[in-house]
């Protein structure tokens, strides 16, 4: 099947601009990048449906002349989902602004802390693996467990 120069160029430009915006540090530009990428992808999917046809309405055009309904349905849902995603990003921008007065992507603090812990040679919490106290008896352990159980029985 064939495609047109215009759609090809349009998709290329939109993807380029979308990725360019996405790589910015400003959250606003990231949001705009995602919106542009959404449009680019929708165009790509629609173009994958093949050449332009008549509206997919039974009875108004012969079936063979209709445009592909499947890609349209996919794109239609994608458009609405992009709205949801955009709203979510906006909420994040709002949070970021309220908390830090910042519209920036900052370094992930969790990632940083993982690196720091690794550098310090910190490891798993040793205690969480320890089954002593039920694996082998030390006197103190046993005493405590025993008296606890006894107290409970008396209660």
């Amino acid at each position, binding site marked *: 099947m064939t495609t047109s120069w215009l759609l090809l160029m349009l998709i290329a430009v939109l993807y380029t601009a979308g990725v360019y915006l996405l790589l910015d540090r400003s959250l606003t530009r990231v949001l705009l990048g995602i919106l542009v990428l959404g*449009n680019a992808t929708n165009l790509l999917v629609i173009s994958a449906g093949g050449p332009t046809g008549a509206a997919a309405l039974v009875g108004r055009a012969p079936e063979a002349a209709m445009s592909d309904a499947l890609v349209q349905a996919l794109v239609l849902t994608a458009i609405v989902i992009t709205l949801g995603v955009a709203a979510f990003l906006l909420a994040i921008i709002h949070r970021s602004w309220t908390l830090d007065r910042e519209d*920036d992507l900052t370094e992930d603090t969790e990632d940083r802390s993982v690196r720091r812990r690794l550098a310090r040679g910190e490891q798993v919490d040793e205690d969480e693996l320890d089954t002593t106290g039920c694996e082998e008896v030390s006197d103190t352990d046993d005493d405590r467990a*025993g008296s606890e159980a006894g107290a409970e029985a008396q209660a």
Partner: protein
Amino acid sequence: MLVVLGVHALAALLAPALVRTLGRRAFALLALVPAAACAWIATRLPTVVAGGTVTEGFSWIPALGVEVAVRLDALSATLSLLVTGVGALVVAYCARYFTPSSRGLGRFAAVLVGFAGAMLALVWADDVVVLYVCWELTTIFSFLLVGQDAHKRASRAAAMQALVVTAAGGLTMLVGLVVLAEAAGTYRLSGIAAAGPHLSGAAVTAGVVCVLVGALSKSALVPFHFWLPSAMAAPTPVSAFLHAAAMVKAGVYLVLRLAPGFADVAAWRPLIAVLAALTMLLGGVVAARQHDLKLLLAHGTVSQLGFMVLLAGAGTRDAGLAALALVVAHALFKSALFLTVGVIDRCAGTRDLRELSGLGRRAPVLAAAGTLAAASMAGIPPLLGFVTKEGAFEAFLHDSYGPAAPVLLAVVVLGSVLTVAYSTRFVVGAFTDAFTTDPHRTWIRPGPLFVAVPAVLGLAGLVAGPAIGLITPLLTGYADTLAATYPTPLVLKLWPGVTVALGLSALAIVLGVLVALPRIAARTAALRPLAAIRSEVTWRALVHAVEAGSMRVTAQTQRGSLAVVVCTVLGVLLAGPGVALVATGALGEIRLDRVADSPAQVVAGVLAVVSTVAAALARRRLAAVLLVGGLGYAVAVVFALAGAPDVALTQALVETMTLVAVVLVLRRLPRDITEHHSPRRRLARLAIAAPVGVLLALLGAAALGVRSLPAVSTAFPSQAYAFGAGQNVVNVTLVDIRAWDTIGELSVLLAAATGVASLVFLDRRTGTPPGGSRRRRGPAIPDPATPDPAVPSAWLRGPTLERLARRARPGPAATERTLLLEVVTRLVFPTIMVVSVYFLFAGHNAPGGGFAGGLLAGLALVARYVAGGRYELGEAAPVEAGTLLGAGLLCAGLSGLAGLVLGGEVLQTAVLELDVPVLGHVKLVTSLFFDVGVYLIVVGLVLDILRSLGAELDRLGDTPATPDPTPVTTGSEVRP
């Protein structure tokens, strides 16, 4: 049989409610369930003993040949009698073991009964997939039971250890079972075992080894033995059940079940013999050193499990008979012993045999029960333990394991010596008088039921010894499926006469008692080499390695910068599909035969390109946003020209909605976007972006060029009208042909809307029309959404009221609003709503549908909000967004079920034609209600966006830092 299992599941579900109403007495009631199951099995015994089987089942996954099949034969009858019998007693025992104030008893009861049911299903299952499911169910239930005292660190660690070890073994077993099932050509367990002797090859050997790994890990054999003693962090009744009849017996059961078919596979006997023998000795040595009675028993179980698996794996008739008899004997004495320890623990307050003294005098019944059980464990005549141990010796004398038999017999005798030693230690330590201990230690008299349960189990071992003849037919029912290797078959007898086996028994008892003498017992502690097999250490090292490894990988890959992550993804995209595109020559397939489809498309395309480029370069925030909006409209035109009116309509509406939402939030931010990147950095970004853009465009074109098959949607138009009863193919695709996709999408929207609201509102799910929350905090503020019933509602009341209120209040200036706009929106609002509903209903046959309709209704709300602020919004939509979202999903879900009710499949459209008096002939399509659901969810999403990003941000903007000290009270009486 399936009913019995169903009753267990039901009882497990009801258990929390029962415990809530009856307290711990509920356990007595719940015990009736396994007891009834036990009785039911007993009624089937004549059939089973006669060599018959009881089967039930139905098809589950026909394509894979998987069935929910259960089967009762001699082996599963024996095991299930133990599971239900011991299970009933253990559950009843819980009614006294726990104090009324014990924590989490309802959950515990549910899990315990569920565990009993899962174990029962495991021994009944005749399909390997069902077997595996039950196997892992017991794993999960035991995890919950061991971790019952979740507040204790050791409990959590032990539960996790048991889960990881047995679940890993279970997964290995699944692989093995599937290999064996495929080799045998059936998923029936009985079929696989029957086909076993005819199978050979590397795959079968590998499958058998995998299954054995699962079985041995479940049965806590070396090197997996460490989880079982740790698991005694569980409440004692659980330990009793776990050790005696459930969980660990599953591994023994599987070995017994597969032995007739696979004992002759090369790897089978060596693997089992070495590991089981090692386990028997190791467990015995460690048990003989313990001071904690429960730990002593736990290590004893490890030793006994080695013994049982050793016999079960021999694959000869005599060993199989002895193994099954030992399983029965072990279940009786080990449960009795654990439950005895439970009583001691509760009533004496300790389980340390150095501190216990004089229980023999204080609690004679309990001491008798415990001593009987321990004697059975040690193999003292005339108890069942003696009979089975004699049988085991005989089995080895009868050449089980061929040439290795003498060595293994020696191991078993040595193991028996250790068993006698720790049994003696148990009895002497627990019940006799000691001089070294504190004489003031209290002893709470246990109730009759509390002692009765271990007593019954202890007595059972005493009765079963002389009555072995009654049990034998059931046991030989299994054993006779194995090959006999000896001319005279083994007969289990109370008094076999003076034989070599009897001599060995006597030797074991004498040596064992000697070993138990304090002086020699101290020496056994020197048997370090065996105790050095501490897989526990390996286990910890393994967990550490996994943790450290994951941390290193995280630190390497998650560099903390989103741009780096995105670039990595894009780099892979370029290196993978990009290189492939060039290398495979797919580029040559691209067919570009025209500049554009129409002149109008060129105009729209140029507009799109211009606004995109401008947006990417814009510094002004608002300008960038508007330019992206322009791009959206241009794309909508492209869609419209491409024969996609529905998509174009939706795109235009969404674009407007997005624009509003973005402006709502970004108006709070500075005018300009901060430029962080130097021109060079920006060029670098472009250097990544441009190849990606070109690649994706070429990929799309190439995909179109190489397409050789007709599109799946070719038949959609005819199907849409024939089955979906709609002319708008896109809409029918959404609500019928691909309705599952739409359901998924609706869930995404719901999640996004909820996410937005929770990010903005933080402490609640939003929804209350604006003003509601403030009203709760301060004195009255008029809420237009719920007008005062005493005052007749007035048109245009909201804005005026608001304005007056704002004027009367110091602080931020009133928002800019115009009365004219408000009046116009109020006039237009009903009209737009009507059109949106028209879209919804007409969408099945013409452009429109739930998405477009919902968006249009949302835009009507936007207009009201933009014109009149948040109070106006509350006036326009006095409902919670969450209600709309929930109602929408419910509506879509119910209409999906309607297809099922009306005789089709889920989400299949049904057409109802009715003659309604006034409306005449009405054709009702069930997918309309699906679209109504879509409509409601979209409106809910828009409302959430407006409430959160609009109204709530307004409110936060009005009261920047401090809560409003002077809540608005003026104006409530003012009417226009």
